[in-house]
């Protein structure tokens, strides 16, 4: 007779073929679905073939036993119904609830099916339990671990966002040290009781979750609230500073510094551009049209300055059809400091507009921005 594994995978293969045919008939664009289903067909067909050859890898197949007649208790119908309720409620509330319901419903139905099948695998309840675990544990454990880690990480982020910066740094050091100490203890004492190890992990996780709940109830720390209300560090204004709450070291990240179009330096009253590949300082930079392009302004003077980018004009939507200049600029940059600026220009230089970079309050210094 056919093995159980063979039946499962041949069923999956045929179902995938049917789904592929249906997707070709129903969908206009089948590129993604077609690729995914084709890969599933190939993978499941391969596994089917392997199972035929290896007979499920079962060299000592037990004699088929009579099955248990009495089904056990199951919580999955309850979970499935909760998922269905979320699904229906999500239809009229939010897509997040809807898709959450779909996930819960599918997971519960899958668990329910496997449980029902495993209960009838033999008359031995212990064997049935092992069969169920062998099938589902490789899925359940990673999913539960990911969910658990997600909750812990999210809780930790709530703690870090609620405490001030110095406390946050201290907490980070303490938590990190505790993790290293715990890991070291487990490593040098491998014979430690599993229950003790599990208890330490559970209490640690619960502590972080409790801290996260407390952090959420306290809310974000003051400067983050302030920054969010002001547009979260965007500060598009080129006038006087509105707030002290901006990140003066925004360009401190390596990822940004390593991938900029140019560094604009202001030193000795001269404005020059350093462009990767050009050995000498430049008086112009080239920016592709309609492309977000990052530059860094480096103020090497002794006073505070800001870089202003004149990016053309846009039509005023008002009654008189006037045009309005598009200006973007950095914050006031401290002596020796750096600020990042993103340019995006929609029209080429051949449209007749002269795009340029200047330093506010400084005459006669400009970098031409060429848009091919």
């Amino acid at each position, binding site marked *: 007779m056919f093995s159980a594994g063979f039946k499962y995978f041949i069923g999956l293969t045929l179902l995938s073929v049917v789904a592929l045919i249906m997707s070709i008939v129903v969908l206009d664009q089948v*590129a993604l679905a077609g690729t995914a289903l084709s890969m599933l067909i190939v993978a499941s067909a391969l596994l089917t073939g392997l199972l035929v050859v290896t007979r499920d890898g079962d060299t000592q197949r037990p004699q088929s036993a009579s099955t248990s007649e009495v089904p056990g208790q199951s919580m999955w119908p309850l979970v499935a119904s909760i998922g269905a309720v979320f699904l229906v409620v999500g239809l009229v509330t939010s897509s997040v609830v809807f898709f959450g319901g779909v996930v819960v419903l599918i997971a519960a139905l899958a668990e329910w099916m496997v449980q029902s099948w495993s209960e009838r695998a033999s008359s031995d309840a212990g064997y049935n339990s092992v069969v169920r675990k062998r099938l589902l544990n490789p899925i359940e454990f990673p999913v539960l671990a990911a969910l658990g880690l997600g909750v812990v990480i999210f809780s930790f982020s709530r703690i870090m966002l609620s405490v001030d910066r110095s406390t946050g740094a201290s907490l980070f050091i303490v938590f990190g040290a505790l993790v290293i100490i715990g890991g070291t203890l487990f490593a040098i004492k491998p014979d430690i009781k599993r229950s003790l190890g599990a208890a330490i992990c559970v209490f640690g996780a619960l502590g972080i979750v409790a801290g996260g709940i407390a952090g959420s109830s306290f809310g974000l720390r003051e400067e983050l609230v302030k920054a969010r209300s002001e547009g979260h560090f965007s500060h598009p204004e080129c006038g006087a500073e509105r707030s002290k709450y901006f990140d003066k070291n925004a360009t401190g990240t390596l990822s940004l510094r390593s991938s900029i179009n140019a560094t604009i330096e202001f030193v000795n009253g001269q404005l020059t551009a350093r462009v990767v590949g050009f050995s000498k300082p430049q008086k112009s930079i080239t920016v592709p049209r309609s492309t*977000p392009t990052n530059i860094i302004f480096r103020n090497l003077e002794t006073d505070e300055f800001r870089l202003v980018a004149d990016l053309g004009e846009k039509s005023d939507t008002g009654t008189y059809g006037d045009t309005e200049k598009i200006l973007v600029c950095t914050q006031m940059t401290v002596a020796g400091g750096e600020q990042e600026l993103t340019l995006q220009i929609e029209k080429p230089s051949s449209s007749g507009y002269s795009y340029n970079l200047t330093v506010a309050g400084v005459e006669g210094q400009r970098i031409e921005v060429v848009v091919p």
Partner: protein
Amino acid sequence: MTHSAWHIRLQTFLTSVRRMFAHKPKALVGTLAGSLVVGSCARNASQDTWQPKGPNAEIIDNLQQPIFAVAGIVGLIVAAAVVYCVIKFKDRGQPIPEQTHGKPALEITLTIIPALILAVVAVFTFGVIFKLAKTDDTEMIINVTGQQWWWEYDYPVQTELGIVQPIITSGQLVMPVGTKVLLRITSRDVIHSYWIPALNGKRDAVPGRVQTLRLEADEPGIYAGQCTEFCGLSHANMRMETIALSKEDFATWVANQQSKYVAPAEETLAKQGESVFLNQCVRCHQVNGLTRADGTPAIAAPDESVWSGAAPNLTHLMSRNTFAGAMFDLVSKQCRDEVWHATSDVFGAKYLAGVKEECLNQKDLRAWLRNAPAVKPMYSNPTQLEATGGKYRGMPYLALSEDDINKLVAYLLTLK
């Protein structure tokens, strides 16, 4: 046929498959190995990674050849050991041997040997990484911008190379031989990856970031490439070519790219095509120097219609050999073969001749103008554009009449 009859037939088939695996393994392995060998003997493979045509690709090749050999030997040893164990210790009902734990000498040896191999490989690999990351010896800069599904090249002003005003082109990157060219690569929409196998490795084009890649070609010729980061529906059709010209030929190319726009003569089919272009194409495609009837410059506004905010600049379209993201040849197969297979000394002249009317690939160009999404998969159906706020990804169907297409082809032929 009854259910049981099907059942028996299926079982018979599966049994025969199982027997084939069991009794004809040599035939199976031989067939597979033969297929691999035959597949690896492809001629005229323009994107062969094992045939470097420039110093940067040679640096990579000099690293990958010995590493491939070492990895191959290690792989063969492992495979042989696995096959030996599978055959030798196959389950024949024999009792399970005594289980032991720990062979310190063996474990240390098997840890140290791979670690040493990897350490040696790492030393040379880091050396190559640093060599390929050099930018201080750059002799020429080209900005490369990827978008769905074509590449744009712009040449900043570099007076020492004769580039006194920015040059912009697409599909084919043109550069002089024996020159250290630095590409500054970015993207307008999603992540792409730039790869000309004969000249260097890959470099991702990431929106908001400028990444560099060195290119240098030893000989004049065409070097083919392909976007190597899945970037959407027509990723497979996002090709590119690098054209290496002698320095004299490159100077000629630069001079042509900087030449002023010449409007078609009055009362010609091409002049009528210019009107069609102004009414239809200039919404997205720029032709530098083209003016409207009132004398104002015709400035394209692709940002209003195209999600990436750009469409290929067609100013000197007929100086290229490809169009539509280098998916199609702009010249007929015979004319293209003449360029591709030209010897180094005449290659430049043949390429610089551009596209003559008798060489134009009318079939593909007309099909493209007739209905672009029908010949290159693109998101053109309005119902598919919700995510982009109604903007197109790729060129839409323009409902041009055959008369308009005739005029446009005549006009495009003037864009030398």
